[in-house]
């Protein structure tokens, strides 16, 4: 087992040793999916997800069980990602974005070898690239809020708990994120009901 520490959590029986193997097994898919939404590529998602569990293990003493273990892990993942992004200059983020685009091209190309109509596969790969590029326009915080609501399907009050802000702030950040995504995807004008530029 990965270490044993006597901790009380909302999910564990009092005074039973915490089996961290079980924590990882139970939450790894959710946390990886969150990390993929935050980072946009599998390599960074794996790294972020592993760092999340490492930090959780190291800070078990600070977990008092007010929130669920899942919410707590979400918070660690989001904060770790935001802290990392804060440490990067805009130039580094731009370079990372172009590398991510290349990664996405590679994985999109791999999907092209899958069975199916070639034209539809190309269209699908293009949409995936546009979606990822649109997400990259968002600030780390905006992206976190959007991913938590739209892909992780957390309720606004759960997101507020994860980010330790008010629901009103979550709503405001989400609205701003949505408008930026709309602008980034504005070439899909007919679908978005936007007018053609004069």
């Amino acid at each position, binding site marked *: 087992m*990965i*270490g044993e520490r006597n901790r009380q959590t909302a999910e564990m029986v009092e005074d039973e040793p915490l089996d*961290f*193997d079980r924590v*990882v*097994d139970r939450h*790894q*898919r959710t946390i*990886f*999916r969150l990390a*993929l*939404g935050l980072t946009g590529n*599998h390599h960074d998602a*794996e790294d972020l*997800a*592993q*760092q999340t*569990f*490492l930090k959780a*293990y*190291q800070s078990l003493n600070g977990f008092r069980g007010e929130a669920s273990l899942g919410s707590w892990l979400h918070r660690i993942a989001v904060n770790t990602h935001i802290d990392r992004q804060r440490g990067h200059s805009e130039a580094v983020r731009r370079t990372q974005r172009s590398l991510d685009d290349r990664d996405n091209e590679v*994985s999109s190309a791999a999907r092209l070898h899958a069975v199916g109509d070639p034209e539809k596969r190309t269209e*699908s790969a293009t*949409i*995936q690239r*546009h*979606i*990822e590029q*649109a997400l990259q326009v968002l600030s780390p915080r905006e992206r976190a809020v959007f991913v938590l*609501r*739209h*892909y992780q399907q957390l*309720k*606004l009050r759960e997101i507020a708990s994860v980010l330790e802000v008010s629901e009103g702030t979550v*709503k405001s950040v*989400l*609205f701003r994120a*949505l*408008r930026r*995504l*709309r602008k980034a*995807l504005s070439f*899909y004008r007919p*679908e*978005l*009901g*936007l007018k053609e530029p004069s």
Partner: protein
Amino acid sequence: MKPCDQIHDQFIDALYGDLEPVPQQEFDTHLSACVACAAEFSSLRSTLDIMDRREAEEPGAGFWPEFADGVRAAIAEGERREEPRAPGPRPWPVRRAIQWRGRSRREDRRWQ
């Protein structure tokens, strides 16, 4: 009818189906009468429809045991680094400034 700015405040709730029945009805009534708000809401709805097309590829079954191994390795490495240092004299000298009769004087001092 509610003013437009109050309707805008409800856009997020409406987009995710979180409005209660009465506010939802007021919201729908406003949109049916206000072209600008209806267009704004529709374009945000379409944006979410596009974002819904994101395909997040799940890793295969073989990925997860390796992932858990990576977590174990990181934890083990972290615990190895936290092991207490063996007792004994510190290898580096400690310098401290000593005031002696108005003159400052530096003196090397080793831990006992």
